[in-house]
C-alpha cells in the first residue's frame, strides 16, 4: 500500500529543480518509479511530494554528436535495448541493457533512475565507468559534468545535490582498436557481481589502455586502477598470464559484503572469474572481427 502524496509535474528541468529546492527532503524526483514506488510501498521511505519529470521534453533521446553518444536520463532500459544507434555504437551497452531485470521493469525503468537510486545490485554504473562516461547534472542555476567514477558515494547515495537532476549520460564512442565487455553473475532477481572491462590496443598488439570496474558485490561500483596497471602496456598474451593476479586485486577492491547473494570471499572470487572471461570475450570479439 502506498501512503498518500502529492504529485508535481514540472515541464522544465529548472522548474523541477526549483520544486526540489522548495520542498527539500519531503520531495523526490519520480521517473519510472520502479525503485521508488517499491521502497515506498515497503514503507522504507516516504515523501510528501513526488515530482514527475516525464513531462519534461527532450530527456529521452539517444543521439550521436561529435563521437559522443548522448543518452537522456529518462530513456527507458527497453528503448536502450532496442536502440539502433546504441547497438551500432556501443553494442556492449545494449547487451547490458537487454539483461537488466525483466521486460516490464525495462519498459518503465529509466537509466537515470537506475543511476540515481544507486542501488548496489545494478549494472549500468559499472559499465559506464569503463566506458569513460560523463553524467550531466543540472539545477536552477547551474549545470555540471560528473565523471561516472565520481557519481557514486555509497549504497543508495550519489554526489547529486538535493536540488540537482541528472539529465544526460554522455558516452564516448569506442575507438576502432578497442573492445568492451560487461559480465554479470547472479543467483537472485538482481545481479550479485558485475564486471566491466575496456581494452584498447595499438597496432602492435600492446594494450594502450585498460579500464576495469567492479559492481554489485560491494556498496558501490568502482574502478580498479591497480588491476588496470597490470594489464596496460602488455601484449594480449602477457596480459592473459596476469589475469589471475589482476582478478585477485579487483576482487579485493570490490569491497564485497556478505549477504543473501553470497559470502564476501565468494563474490571476490567471482570478480576474478568474470575478469578472465571478459578479457577472453574481448579477444574473441576482436579476432572474429578481424
Amino acid at each position, binding site marked *: *500500500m*502506498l*501512503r*498518500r*502524496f*502529492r*504529485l508535481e509535474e514540472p515541464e522544465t528541468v529548472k522548474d523541477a529543480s526549483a520544486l526540489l529546492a522548495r520542498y527539500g527532503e*519531503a520531495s523526490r524526483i519520480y521517473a519510472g*518509479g*520502479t525503485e521508488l*514506488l*517499491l521502497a515506498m*510501498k515497503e514503507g522504507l521511505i*516516504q*515523501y*510528501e*511530494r*513526488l515530482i514527475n519529470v516525464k513531462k519534461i521534453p527532450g530527456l529521452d533521446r539517444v543521439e550521436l554528436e561529435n563521437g559522443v553518444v548522448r543518452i537522456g536520463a529518462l530513456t527507458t532500459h*527497453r528503448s536502450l535495448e532496442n536502440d539502433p544507434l546504441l547497438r551500432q555504437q556501443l553494442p556492449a551497452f545494449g547487451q547490458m541493457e*537487454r539483461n537488466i*531485470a*525483466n*521486460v*516490464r*521493469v525495462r*519498459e*518503465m525503468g529509466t537509466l537515470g533512475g537506475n543511476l540515481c537510486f544507486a542501488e548496489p545490485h545494478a549494472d549500468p554504473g559499472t559499465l559506464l565507468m569503463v566506458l569513460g562516461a560523463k553524467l550531466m547534472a543540472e539545477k536552477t542555476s547551474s549545470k555540471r559534468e560528473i565523471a561516472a567514477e565520481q557519481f557514486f558515494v555509497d549504497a543508495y547515495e550519489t554526489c547529486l545535490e538535493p536540488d540537482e537532476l541528472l539529465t544526460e549520460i554522455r558516452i564516448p564512442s569506442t575507438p576502432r582498436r578497442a573492445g568492451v565487455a560487461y559480465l554479470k553473475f547472479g543467483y537472485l*532477481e538482481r545481479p550479485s557481481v558485475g564486471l566491466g572491462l575496456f581494452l584498447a590496443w595499438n597496432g602492435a598488439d600492446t594494450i594502450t589502455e585498460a579500464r576495469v570496474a567492479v559492481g554489485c558485490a560491494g556498496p558501490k561500483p568502482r574502478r580498479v586502477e591497480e588491476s588496470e596497471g597490470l594489464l596496460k602496456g602488455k601484449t594480449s598474451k602477457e596480459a592473459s598470464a596476469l589475469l589471475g593476479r589482476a582478478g585477485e586485486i579487483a576482487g579485493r577492491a570490490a569491497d564485497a559484503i556478505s549477504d543473501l547473494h553470497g559470502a564476501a570471499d565468494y563474490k571476490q572470487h567471482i570478480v576474478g572469474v568474470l575478469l578472465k572471461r571478459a578479457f577472453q570475450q574481448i579477444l574473441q570479439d576482436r579476432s572474429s572481427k578481424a
Partner: protein
Amino acid sequence: MAEGTAKAEDRQFIPISFTLNGTTQQTQVEPHELLIDVIRNRFGLTGTKRSCDVQVCGACTVLVDGRPMSSCTTLAFEARGHEVLTIEGLAKNGKLHPLQAAFIEHGGFQCGFCTPGMILAAKALLDQNPEPNREEIIHFMEGNICRCTGYKKILESIVAAAKILRSPGR
C-alpha cells in the same frame, strides 16, 4: 483513509481519461493510487492479479499501448491518455484470441492465476516479434512466473499461437 504524510486538506485528484479495453474512461485518481487497484476495485476487472507486489512475477501484467507493465507498481495516473488492455479485453465478441485458444489447446496453465499476465505478456511479445525463436521467447517471458506448469506447455502454447497469428488470411 490512509494517514499519509501529505495533509488531508491537500488531497489531490488528477482527472484522467484513458482507454480501458477499447472503451474511453474518464475518472479521477489520487496520485498514490496504483493502476492495479483502480482496475480491480473501481472497474471490477479482477482478471489482473496481484501476487508478488514487487514487479517480479508478472501476474499483474497489463498492456499500456501494447507494452507490458507491472500494474502492481504503476501509478494509476500514468494511464492518462493511453490505451490499457487487461485480460478481459482480449477476446473479441466472445471469440478467443489465438493465444487464449492456444493456452487451452496446449495445456498452458493449471491454477490459472498467472495466466492473464502470461497471455498478455505473450501478446506483447508476438505483436513486437511475430516469429520469435525459443531463446527470444524465454528471454521475454522470463519475468512471468508460473508455479504450476513448469513453463514447457506455456512455451508450446506461445509457439503455436505465433504460428496461427502469422498464417495468411488472418
